[in-house]
């Protein structure tokens, strides 16, 4: 058995002490969960361990021997491999699966060889895939893979080298139920082969399902380390937040106003077929369905983002509107918080402040479109407080915020805009339980102010917890409409999987 230890690790970034004297240890052949609120420092700790930073203090030891990990290569050479959450940053899309899996081998082990042996590359890659029981055509281009498959390629790459410890940073956030199970199968397989797994996730049930041990972080420090079997989900949350969570879902209103949004026969070129729905003022309407059922496509079609609606009628406040593009959608009072926040929701290179004002710069403009920077700053500060966004200042680039805080920024910007209809597409993806609660509160508050809310999610518990009514989407079609109060998760799942 091998033990990997981090001792008294600290690291600073301009304006934040991201890690403060952290001790952490894992053993081979175990699955170890690392958990903590957004911005607690999980990803940073793992980046230190995998050699992404060289300006930390503290020690890393393997079986008592000090390791010098200051670059990704030195970490890999010590048998520490990582699969980052943003899989696309680590893959080369126009190369094949085999080339991507064997990338490290090509880069480090070619030695004096100059020629690529294609046959050998494909056979080696195939062997690695079969060793972890994966079936994937090695000749396929990575750009054609699904997210889950891309993740598999990265895991295969990680184990293509000597792999004693494998770090998975929020691997399940974008995966469907089946894909998650497939991932767990691989994790257990690796565990059987004596690999130590470090598993980061915001989904507690998962952790209790597959992890042996758990380390809990808060504000850059480790607050607790336990065997999973010795604790409960509630206790973990308490350690994470430093307080009890209380009721996760806020009280919902049950009286609604007039119909705000009416959709009839919405059909897009690819996925959505004849979707009809209405949402009243103050009502939260869920769009349930499995990953891939077309929830995102529906949200985007409604918002004019796909630009390829073929049929359908949209009425806002009784008036028929044309929503050919997002610009028209916003003008007609719609707002969309998209699922892929890094790609679609935020401007990573801009400050928190300009991210928050971007939707409604008009409000911050004086005569001749000149910007009112003072007002912009003031509103940004207020929003940061109200949403509890963890950031050193309103001028920090959004890139440097942790995942959950980026999501809050993506939601926050629409609060400035004062829309009539808010569309949320998986707003809690990658968000910790505390922040989730904040987001739920926010949504309910919007509803109580008479906004119409559409809430798309593949998490049945969230649909049950926050919506008033729900439409179930299966393969692009609305197969069922249910009152949330008179249904349950089983029924949702039944219709979501095509039952009728």
């Amino acid at each position, binding site marked *: 058995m091998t033990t990997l230890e981090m001792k008294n690790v600290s690291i600073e970034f301009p304006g934040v002490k991201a890690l403060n004297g952290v001790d952490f240890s894992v053993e081979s052949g175990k699955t170890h969960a690392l958990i903590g609120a957004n911005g607690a420092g999980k990803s940073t700790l793992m980046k230190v361990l995998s050699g992404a930073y060289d300006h930390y203090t503290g020690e890393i030891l393997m079986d008592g021997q000090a390791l010098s990990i200051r670059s990704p290569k030195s970490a890999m050479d010590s048998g520490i491999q990582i699969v980052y959450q943003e899989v696309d940053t680590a893959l080369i899309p126009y190369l094949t699966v085999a080339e991507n899996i064997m990338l490290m081998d090509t880069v480090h082990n070619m030695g004096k060889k100059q020629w690529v042996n294609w046959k050998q590359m494909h056979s080696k890659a195939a062997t690695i895939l079969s060793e972890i029981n994966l079936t994937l055509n090695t000749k396929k281009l990575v750009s054609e893979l699904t997210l889950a498959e891309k993740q598999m390629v990265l895991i295969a790459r990680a184990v293509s080298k000597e792999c004693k410890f494998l770090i998975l940073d929020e691997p399940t956030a974008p995966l469907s139920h089946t894909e998650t199970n497939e991932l767990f199968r691989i994790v257990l397989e690796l565990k059987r082969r004596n690999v130590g797994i470090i598993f980061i996730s915001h989904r507690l049930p998962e952790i209790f399902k597959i992890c042996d041990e758990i380390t809990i972080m808060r504000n850059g420090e480790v607050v607790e380390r336990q065997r999973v079997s010795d604790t409960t989900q509630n206790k973990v949350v308490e350690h994470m937040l430093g307080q009890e969570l209380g009721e996760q879902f806020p009280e919902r209103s049950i009286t609604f106003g007039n119909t705000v949004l009416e959709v009839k026969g919405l059909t897009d070129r690819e996925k959505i077929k004849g979707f009809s729905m209405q949402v009243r003022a103050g009502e939260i309407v869920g769009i349930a369905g499995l990953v891939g059922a077309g929830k995102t496509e529906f949200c985007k079609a409604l918002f004019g*983002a796909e630009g390829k609606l073929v049929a359908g009628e949209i009425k806002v406040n009784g008036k028929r509107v044309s929503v050919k593009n997002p610009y028209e959608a916003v003008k007609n009072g719609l707002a969309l918080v998209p699922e892929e926040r890094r790609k679609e929701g935020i401007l990573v290179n801009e400050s928190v402040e300009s991210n928050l004002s971007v939707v409604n710069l008009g409000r911050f403009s004086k005569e001749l479109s000149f910007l009112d920077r003072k007002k912009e700053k003031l509103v940004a500060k207020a929003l940061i407080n109200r949403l509890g966004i963890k950031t050193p200042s309103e001028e920090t680039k959004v890139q440097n915020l942790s995942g959950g805080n980026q999501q809050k920024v993506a939601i926050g910007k629409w609060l400035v805009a004062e829309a009539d209809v808010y569309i949320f597409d998986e707003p809690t993806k990658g968000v910790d339980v505390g922040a989730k609660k904040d987001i739920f509160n926010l949504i309910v508050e919007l509803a109580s102010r008479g906004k119409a809310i559409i809430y798309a999610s593949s998490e049945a518990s969230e649909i049950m917890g926050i919506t008033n009514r729900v439409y179930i989407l299966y393969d692009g079609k609305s197969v069922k409409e249910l009152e949330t109060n008179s249904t349950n998760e089983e029924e949702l799942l039944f219709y979501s999987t095509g039952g009728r």
Partner: protein
Amino acid sequence: MEANISAKKKTPTKMSFDLFQFLYKYGTIITIIALIILFSLANPSFIQGNNIVNILRSISIVTIIAIGITISLTVNGFDLSVGSVASLSNAVVISMFVWFSQNTFVAIISAMAAALIVGILNSIMIVKMRIPDMLLTLATMFIIQGTALTYTKGATVSQNMVMPDGKMAEGLISPFFSKIGQVPWIILIMVVVVVVVHIFLTYTKHGRYMYVIGGNTEAARLSGIPVNKYKVAAYLLSALFAAIGGIVLASRVMTSEINSGAPYLMDSVAAAFIGFSVLGAGKPNAFGTFVGAVLIGILANGLVMMSVPYFAMDIVKGTVLAFALAITYYKQK
């Protein structure tokens, strides 16, 4: 990842960290100051008022055209057709005077209109046909170059030129127009262009939108920004400034040479890109572009003064540019 590793050393290396940060911000400006000192030592007349005005005059056309490129860069585009648009507007404005005996107003408006047509063409092809910016404007560069040549029948247009029918052209360039290209007007025009565009990009809603589009087009679109409109606007503005450059050039030389605008393209591109780093902006910006143009202008002028032979100029010019960029970007990302 790599991005995070660099630049953020802790206390022991605090000094060097600050130094690099400092260089990133002020690298270009330091190079300019160093060059001024160097050239002045070599030849004291370099810093005399006369010569400074000379330098400013010599960079004004480059700066105006580079400002156009800068605007196209803010929306993450790239307008390579500006050089030939400058040629075209140069040809149009001179021919309006010489061939058609028009007044200054008509001449200038026609030149701008010609340029705006190119801008419309560029933006439609880029926005509607989705041709990548650089490729499309490369194509329009050839088309417009050819159009300008065809329009002037491959000849230099000037006062009293011999027309195809054997007669001399009768039109005259108005005395008012000839002022535009002279000091102080030419410098004033440049300063106004830089200041107005700087204010536009930094302090107005529209400027912010353009940067947002350049930063993340998809997020900008989903935020309800009319992305296509702003892209069209960017290419129109870019063509417009190229036209102003061409008009000023026309007034300065009072003729229309073949491809007169082409030599300005590369210097303008260089100025705009050097401008990225000035004062640590990290993105295209009008003031930075001006500083970039100053750097290039000082180099050209100083080298002539030091009697570097013309055929070796580009070697030195390129080397100093690479140096300025090196101290700026070394250790950054």
